Every structure is written in C-alpha cells, then in structure tokens.
C-alpha cells in the first residue's frame, strides 16, 4: 500500500510525547503495556518501512519515522519500587505518538 511521501520528522530529542491508547487488531509493534503512557523522545532513529503493512505482504511504504522514547518506570507500572530514575526505552513509530502539551 502506498501513500503520500514521508515528510520531515515531527519530533526531536527531549520532546514530551504520549503513546496512543488504542487497541486496533492486526500486527502492531507497540506492546500493550506502553499504550497510553507518556515519555520523552530519547533519539530519532530514522525512517523504516511500516511493520503494520509489511506483516500483510504490502511494501510498508511510505516509511514511518521511528523514535526511541524513554519512559519512567514509575509512570508505566503501578507500585514500581525501584530507583526513581529507572527507565524503559521503546521504539515507537510516529503515527502512535502525540505531543504532551505544556510539558516539553
């Protein structure tokens, strides 16, 4: 499936973002535990073919921007009792992200 050409990345390192809280069917590379959680862009990884299309035999184009997003463990798990600066990083495609207002 093809579409519009890929534009420039919409986020940069340090931006506050939230992962969409949604449960669409199909192949998704966004683990359920991180959906709806807010974190900070750790780095921009480049653009890659969309795994949600590749999984079904399409070409995965246009590519999607991919970011590493860093989340505080205490924001991800209820009752997390490690170090307050413990984090978990995941790779999130741009179409799963939205900006967190007033917190960037």
């Amino acid at each position: 499936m093809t579409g519009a050409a890929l534009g420039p990345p919409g986020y940069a390192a340090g931006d506050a973002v939230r992962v969409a809280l949604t449960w669409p069917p199909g192949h998704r590379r966004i683990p359920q535990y991180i959906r709806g959680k807010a974190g900070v862009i750790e780095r921009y990884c480049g653009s890659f073919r969309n795994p949600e299309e590749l999984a079904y035999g399409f070409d995965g184009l246009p590519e999607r921007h991919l970011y590493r997003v860093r989340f505080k463990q205490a924001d991800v798990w209820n009752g997390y009792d490690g170090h307050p600066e413990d984090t978990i990083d995941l790779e999130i495609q741009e179409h799963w992200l939205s900006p967190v207002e007033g917190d960037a």
Partner: protein
Amino acid sequence: MTGDTHDHGHDHGGGPVLTYADDSVHDRNETGHFELLADALKELSIEKGLVTATEVREYVEFFDSRGTEKGAEIIARAWTDPAYKERLLSNGTAAAAELDIPMAGAELVVVENTGSVHNVIVCTLCSCYPRTILGLPPDWYKSKSYRSRAVNEPRAVLKEFGTELPGDVALRVHDSNADMRYLVLPKRPAGTEDWPEERLRELVTRDSMIGVAPARDPA
C-alpha cells in the same frame, strides 16, 4: 544402554525409534502447530524454487556457528580506544561496520554501563537480538518469563542472575521492539588497565552484553 535386559514391558518391534519420553533434554514439540507450519512453509518455499534446501541449511549453519566473538571484539575495542567508543555510542551500525561486522538490515544501538547507570536488553514481543554480533539468543531470552518480568520487575530479574544493583544506580531497560538491535557496553573490570585488547576480549561474556551480568572479573 543395556539392550533388552531392562524390565519395563514394551515392544521393540516396529515402534518409533524415539518417543517423546526418550527426549529428556528438549521439550520442543516437533509436531506442534507452529512447528508443522514452519516445516510446511520451508517445504513449499523449496518446491516453488524460492530457496534451496542447501541455502536453508547454510543459513542455519551460519547462525548456529556464530558465537559472541564479534561482540567481544567490539567491546574490547571500545574499552581501549576512546575515539572508537565515542563513534560506537553515537552510531553503532557504522562502528560495527568498521570491524567488518554486518547488521543484516537492522540498526545497532550501543548503551554504556557506568557507575550510575546500568542497562539491560529485552525483546518483549519476540526475540529480537543482534544475531550477527552475539549469535543466537539463549533460550531464557526467548522465554515469556524473561520477556515480561525484565520489563516490570527488572531488578528482581537481575538479582536472579546474581546481579544485585546498588540502590543509587539507575536501571535502564531497553525493549527491542522494532528496528533497532541493542548491545550493552559493560564496565571495564578494575585491574585491567594495562591489558591489551586481545586479552580483554576474554572478559566479555554474552550475558554482560545483554546486561544481566557484569563482565568477567579478572581476579
């Protein structure tokens, strides 16, 4: 084995050579749904001429023979060459390529353990792993137990591996869930300041590059 002198009563005539009860080491069910699916896919791909049986065999042989040597080479170089370390941390893929180590389509991210930060790698969705650098992942890395617990109780998991993190060290978990592959740059063990690169490689273990253990203690 003592031939037919054992006393349990079974037929040695026309039965299968091995039964599952004989398979004391592996619990892989060779006739499970996904095993049959994989076999069917392989046979069809060969029948359709997409791959040859030899190519499949060579691919399996390549990855089965691949160990952690390439990873140890990268880490020992980073320990002894500050400029290389800087390049490794800023662009892992390019730094691996400098040592003729391919990434097979993925990108390499290297994360550094320090006195205040410890890193550990997991792939919650499957078993993503830098296979060209570390070979095939260990069974525990693919287990549902590790894949879930390394995410939500990583300190307890590390402790089970014998790695108890001090309270003032922050733990960074990296979920290898898409196009990056990860390698931990362990701390260089104390007392190795005058060691040459080749000797340092012997201290770099698989588990230290996944982040569940420190590098080998030279003492």
